[in-house]
């Protein structure tokens, strides 16, 4: 069984902690979903010298009791991402870090070149890196060579809610690295998208906006958790292969049915 740096998660749903109407509603969403991981951003919240201005909010996140995966959201360069990862390790006492290096401010596409570089540095320093990447196979290979033991390919651009926009690409990535734990990160808008990712054999799903910006975040979080569970169960059950024509379950006697 594939694990995340040796850890097995209670739930294969990972939830972000940004954009909720309030921390209380965020906590409800986590309770309702039983999410296995909470991602937290530090870059903008840390403030000036000392970097502790966001600690009241971080304490609320820690108070939920969910395993924390700090992220480097909002970082555009290797240096920023590495500095933020250091701060995160100190703040949350975990070597886990979701590494995000943004290439474009408007499309929020990952800068995969800087990502590989930052992953090399952080892995050498003992971090357990969860890199936010595209479905590109060569980039995936480089990230693994850099020491990453988990990959987090996007479903679609951050916050878009488009679902899995390159299905053949994501299938190829899954097939290319069957032993590597992989999380679909970003682009999930609906439970059906999350279920689809799990049906394809991905190990977990990470999402934020779809829950935080729903009219009822707790209800949507629950829906996502059910979808992740259903998708995973379906994958484990070895689904049938689709075919182009009907397959009658009783033989058609007396007809030239193959004609």
């Amino acid at each position, binding site marked *: 069984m594939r694990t995340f740096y040796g850890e097995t998660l209670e739930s294969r749903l990972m939830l972000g902690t940004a954009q909720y*109407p*309030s921390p*209380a509603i965020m906590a409800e969403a986590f309770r309702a979903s039983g999410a296995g991981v909470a991602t937290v951003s530090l870059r903008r919240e840390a403030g*000036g010298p000392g970097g502790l*201005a966001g600690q*009241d*909010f971080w304490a*609320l996140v820690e108070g939920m009791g969910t395993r924390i995966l700090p992220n480097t959201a909002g970082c555009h360069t290797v240096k920023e991402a590495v500095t933020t990862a250091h701060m995160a390790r100190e703040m949350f006492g975990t070597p886990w870090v979701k590494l995000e290096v943004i290439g474009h401010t408007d499309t929020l596409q990952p800068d995969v070149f800087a990502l590989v570089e930052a992953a090399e540095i952080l892995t050498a320093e003992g971090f357990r890196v969860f890199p936010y990447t595209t479905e590109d196979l060569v980039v995936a290979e480089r990230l693994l060579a850099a020491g990453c033991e988990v990959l987090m390919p996007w479903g679609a651009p951050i916050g878009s809610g488009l679902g899995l926009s390159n299905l053949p690409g994501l299938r190829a990535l899954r097939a290319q690295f069957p032993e590597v734990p992989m999380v679909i990160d970003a682009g999930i808008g609906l439970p059906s998208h999350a279920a689809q990712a799990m049906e394809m054999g991905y190990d977990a799903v990470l999402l934020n906006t779809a829950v935080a*910006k729903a*009219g009822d975040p707790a209800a949507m979080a629950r829906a996502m958790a059910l979808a992740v569970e259903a998708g995973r169960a379906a994958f484990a059950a070895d689904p049938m292969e689709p075919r182009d024509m009907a397959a009658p379950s009783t033989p058609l006697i007396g007809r030239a049915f193959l004609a």
Partner: protein
Amino acid sequence: MSVRATILGAGVAGLTVASEIVARGGRVEIIDRAGPPGPHGCSWWAGGMLAPWCEAESAEEPVLRLGQEAIGWWERHAGGVTRAGTLVLALSRDGGELERFARRTSGHERLDAPGIAALEPDLSGRFRRALFYPGEGHLAPRAALDALRARLEAAGVEIRRGTAPDPATTLIDCRGLAARDALPDLRGVKGEMLVLRCPDVSLSRPVRLLHPRIPLYIVPRGDGVYMLGATSIESAERGRITARSMLELLSAAYALHPAFGEAEILEIGVDARPAFPDNLPRLRRRGDTLFVNGLYRHGFLLSPAMARMAADHLFHTETRPEMMDEDLPQR
């Protein structure tokens, strides 16, 4: 019964509570470590939108209901309220945001391009669809605080600089984020804002520009002056705007109308809003102290309702108002 209270804090919470008590015949003294309202307090930097219907998009039910008391209260106690509604817009590529906002709020009308032009001629031709909330209003926060202060002074209430209350009175703690020493579940939510002078643009009412990551509002202050706000960051930091925040605020204003690109930047405001985990305000009673806090981004919108409840409780100690979250004390 006679009520004698000492109010700690001369921000919007302290002054509204004081005004409400005085209006009911009670006696108050106001103490603030920094003196009268000014840039040291978070209400100085507020938008002053009295917009319960718009706020309901992301706030819980009490904000919509209690916020509807605000316009009338400010008209009675301070004046200076403009009842011109709120205009909500989105750039064409964010059209989905407008639909979502419409679904999650009430009290609005849909406008087409001619409807927008009729309300705000300077935005003519720039937007094809909008939502209009006719029941909303706005005020200039500093003028409103000054008006409350002047009326209180006329009634013999002084704002004393200091921290030591008269022990013979009920203490009403309205210190905002400074009360975190007594209220550990209070946190700061950083807000950054700008004041611009842009005589080339004329707007008559608050305009909200929706965006999935960088929502913006612009509140006209008159004479071509606009308040541009506001970021909302989970951080207790005060007094430092980041380049990114300013860039985002100005980009959004520029997208609303390119003439904002030529505006003069008059002021940069930064402070942290006091908030409880559900972002709703509270009355909290401990011994002889009553805390009024957690107004978050709804200082001018919800302080009238909170002041009413605080006064209800003080004048009739058996009442436990809806926003009170701790048991009544032994007296």
